[in-house]
């Protein structure tokens, strides 16, 4: 069990770490200053979540690894984030749609985890829930604005949704670690959240005049450590300092 418990917490931590890293690439590049701040703020929230979750994972693992050793010194195969989170930002549309799809999921997950039998995890969830709700509200408003904005913004936002949608299947497909954690009452199997996630997401997409893409047989496998080609480039940047100066304190 403790192996799957660790796996589950690592996935949560790596999702936050990798999406936080992606969002932090936006610094100085957003369409308006307010969004520069909002994106930096979300990145900051996610990095904060990653710190707590990876610290907790390190304790569960029991090998004395701290947040930084986990964040910076694993090989690609050992990162457990969803492929969704590592995809390049592309334009503001794709970034926004991803934030929307992902934070809708995070809200549901943190709601459930706030009642976890893992009290450390429950405390992290309670704190993260507030942040995820803000991310969801903020990105949902933008999805609607962009979807129901100009012809160009409609096109771009629909393209973003079409691109990202196939990566959502990974969140809700059955998984052994998930099942074990659910059985132990630590947290929900992610697949349990699919209906609630759809109920949260679909009305917004409709208001945004977007077409929900058809499901496809594609299954990404980031949470099993099989990532996309984008991940390696992200890690080269993320890890650069720690790899170059092993053992140094910062």
């Amino acid at each position: 069990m403790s192996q799957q418990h660790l796996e589950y917490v690592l996935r949560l931590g790596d999702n936050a770490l990798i999406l936080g890293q992606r969002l932090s690439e936006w610094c100085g590049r957003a369409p308006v200053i307010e969004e520069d701040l909002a994106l930096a703020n979300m990145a900051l929230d996610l990095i904060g979540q990653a710190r707590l979750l990876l610290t907790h994972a390190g304790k569960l693992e029991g090998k004395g690894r701290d947040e930084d050793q986990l964040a910076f010194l694993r090989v690609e195969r050992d990162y457990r984030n969803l492929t969704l989170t590592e995809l390049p930002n592309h334009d503001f549309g794709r970034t926004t749609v991803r934030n929307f799809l992902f934070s809708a999921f995070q809200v549901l997950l943190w709601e459930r985890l706030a009642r976890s039998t893992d009290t450390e995890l429950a405390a992290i969830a309670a704190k993260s829930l507030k942040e995820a709700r803000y991310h969801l509200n903020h990105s949902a408003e933008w999805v609607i604005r962009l979807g129901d904005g100009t012809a160009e913004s409609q096109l771009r936002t629909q393209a973003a949704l079409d691109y990202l949608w196939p990566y959502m299947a990974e969140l809700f497909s059955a998984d052994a670690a998930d099942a074990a954690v659910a059985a132990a009452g630590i947290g929900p199997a992610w697949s349990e959240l699919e209906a609630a996630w759809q109920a949260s997401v679909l009305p917004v997409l409709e208001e945004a005049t977007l077409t929900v893409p058809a499901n496809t047989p594609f299954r990404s496998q980031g949470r099993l450590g099989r990532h996309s080609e984008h991940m390696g480039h992200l890690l080269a940047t993320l890890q650069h300092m720690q790899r170059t100066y092993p053992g140094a304190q910062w």
Partner: protein
Amino acid sequence: PEYVAQFNARIDAGGFIEPKDWMPEAYRRTLVRQISQHAHSEIVGMLPEGNWITRAPSLKRKAILLAKVQDEGGHGLYLYAAAETLGVSRDELYEALLSGKAKYSSIFNYPTLTWADIGVVGWLVDGAAIMNQIPLCKCSYGPYARAMIRVCKEESFHQRQGFDLLLTMMKGTAEQREMVQDAVNRWWWPSIMMFGPHDHDSVHTETARWGIKRISNDDLRQKFVDATVKQAEVLGVTLPDPALKWNAERGHHDFGTIDWDEFWNVVGGHGQCNVDRLAERKRAWEEGAWVREAALAYAEKQAAREQRAA
């Protein structure tokens, strides 16, 4: 003339001028230029630090840097808002930045080459900025003064964080200490240039009379040098100026000759990063055009819908 007398009296009494008060056109123009230049500096200043967010060497430092850059954007926002109280729009000001018509602080045309630069920017650049800005908290224009109070509070927090970053590195490996010293060597002179030309070369009579600039460039610079020398000792770094030494007679530190050619070159557009900084800001603006248009179109649609519903 009656207005002028009132205005002058208010300033002489140390009172604040507020947006609805009468003010001389030159006073307004000077403030718009100075406040917007300050706002631009905050916005452009996000770039050299943003350069290291994705490579920050620990999660804690990454979080601190993200928060800091966010603060800077926030400063930009409320400085633009202060400028807007003088009857100009933010877009107008921002376009003057992008077209190269408006200036921003020349210091941001220097590159951040190593992680130590992030610490040194906090320690020296924010430190110099605070010296410049503290007197502005009492400047005669109310909205500017109030904005500066908030800015200064956050900046001094950033300065302490920068110092702490450097202290941690100085306690680390030889490579880390070398990195800090290298960064100090590169940033020291540009930092003391931030106070601008020597008093005898600069014309600030009006801004002084109007209570905008209350302390001279050289006085601020001296204050900064005196404060920094002590901090450098605590850190254990050498400031790269062999002429720097305590002058007991003056009760201040003497220091070497500033290379004003370099200063004017960078101000004139020929620093390492002038072109890239503006290009990056322009690119963001252009690539974001469709988003701003969409937000506008949606707002108009919504307004029309609400009108129909009413």
